[in-house]
């Protein structure tokens, strides 16, 4: 099965770069972003509580007769300040990835694919107050669920998106193994009507010939099927010799001839 790259996946945002080439950024889904947030919470919440308790201890020990409201208010602020400050500081220091995002392979970028500046990170983290407020889960999650690019309100206000940085494809896997040519020692005689075939057929032949580990009888059946379609497209005469070549030999010769032409 052919895997379709970039353009046709729904969660990809195309960005026109300065090179006038559009790069597809894969947006991070709701799931990975919620998990990233949970990981960050595991780090940030203890820090925030430590800050709140430290403030309370300081306030109570420094003076007697403190009003409970005032100590509690200050401690609550220390809690919020450290919690929200954690996200801002982490994103500013790392260029858009908190430890949670790093663990999930996510990064904040601006809508034009550039790195977010301080102002953008500041906006998205001030609006975070709204995104995580109101409900336990947060209004941000609801909006991310409905937004085609999974943006929360802070992302919209700051013109940012969160994208996935990890790719399954490395250079090693991209540089695919060369096709297995087992039957044809050379390209053979020029096939009649070869000019009717183009890169589509070339890619299909290549995909077939690079498939390893196929049972021989299965491979033969598949080859016969593809060969029949190729002969149809070549529009060779009913009595032409190509029709009597073994299918696998035909496919290999077609590939080699196309490879020479397209090289």
């Amino acid at each position: 099965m052919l895997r379709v790259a970039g353009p046709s996946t729904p969660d990809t945002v195309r960005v026109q770069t300065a090179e006038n080439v559009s790069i597809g950024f894969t947006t991070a889904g709701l799931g990975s972003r919620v998990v990233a947030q949970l990981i960050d919470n595991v780090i940030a919440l203890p820090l925030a509580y430590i800050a709140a308790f430290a403030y309370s201890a300081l306030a109570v020990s420094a003076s007697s007769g403190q009003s409970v409201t005032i100590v509690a208010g200050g401690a609550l602020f220390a809690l919020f300040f450290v919690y929200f400050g954690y996200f801002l500081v982490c994103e500013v220091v790392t260029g858009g990835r908190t430890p949670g995002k790093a663990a999930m392979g996510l990064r904040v970028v601006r809508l034009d694919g550039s790195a977010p500046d301080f102002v953008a990170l500041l906006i998205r983290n001030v609006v975070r107050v709204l995104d995580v407020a109101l409900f336990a889960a947060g209004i941000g999650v609801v909006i991310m669920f409905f937004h085609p690019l999974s943006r929360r309100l802070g992302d919209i206000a700051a013109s940012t998106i969160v994208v996935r940085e990890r790719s399954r494809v490395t250079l090693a896997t991209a540089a695919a193994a060369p096709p297995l040519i087992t039957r044809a020692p050379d390209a053979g005689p020029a096939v009649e009507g070869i000019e009717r075939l183009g890169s589509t057929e070339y890619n299909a032949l290549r995909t077939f010939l690079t498939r390893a580990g196929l049972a021989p009888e299965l491979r033969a059946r598949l080859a016969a099927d593809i060969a029949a379609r190729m002969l149809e497209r070549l529009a060779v005469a009913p009595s032409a010799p190509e029709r009597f070549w073994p299918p696998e030999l035909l496919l290999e010769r077609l590939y080699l001839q196309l490879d020479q032409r397209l090289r």
Partner: protein
Amino acid sequence: MSLDTFIATRQPEWSELEAAINQARRGRLRSTSATQLERFGMLLRHASSDLAIARRDYPDAQVTEYLNSLCSRANPLLYRGSPMRISAVPEFFATGLPRAFRAAWPYILASCALLLLGFIGGWLAVVLRPDLRDSLVPHSLFDELARGGHPTVPDAPFAAAFIIQNNIRVALICFGFGVLWGIVPALVMLSNGWMLGTIAAAVHEGGYDVRFWALIVPHGVIELSIIVIAGGTGLMLGDAVLRPGLQRRGDALGAAARSAVALAVGAAMLLVIAGTMEAYVSPSGLPDAAKLAVGGTAAVLLYSWLLLAGRRRTVAPEHEPRSWTALSGLPGEVPT
């Protein structure tokens, strides 16, 4: 070109770019020399052009996906907004913040109007429904004033911290919640005005005006101004969402947020000054006249800064005498 030849010929540059990306630390190309940086830009441009070729010729090949991921990782390393510098902070307070304040004047005026509306409403409520006064006015404060004393003063440093955090929270909530059509900042302004209005009316009826205003004015001038500014930033965001004009709603919100955030953060920082005055000056034993003078001075300083700092002089056209703009009394500020 066949796929194999394509990969074989271009692969060295891709590997080089990949290595350069892996050298980047914390999302930045640190410890990269100028020549290396130039090389990085060239490698990215080549990889981008390879991506365009691969999209056209091998749309289904893995290498297309690989190139896309390579470019998408390299792009934010090379393209970025101007970095935030500590040295830019003084300039921000000297010119940036006052300019942002003047640019946002319709929203600040609207925010101020909401506060006044709340104030008048609160005043009228107390005057028209004396039977409800007990529930409208906080008891302790009124009793304290009626007895001629000061409201209880907790330890000043912690009171200051409490007041500052409360105000900063209100300011940031005004900004953040402004995204939801500006409803929350509008309510915050109305309720603040209402609170002040009810207390002021009750105090007025009791005849403790000077004592009360001496308690409010030293910090209140700055504090209320800043809360009004913070409310204005929230209204700005709400307005961008409600009336995006020719832009899409998200884009309008993004633009408004960019110009409003400076004002909101600047306001939050100024609240530190206001909170300190509220804890130290307002409840202190200074004579009422001195307290009012402190408040008046603060007001003059604040507004001369906000209204006058960072104005640019109009450059008169070459062929006209320089004094012309000054004589005609035209506003001296170039529209930005």
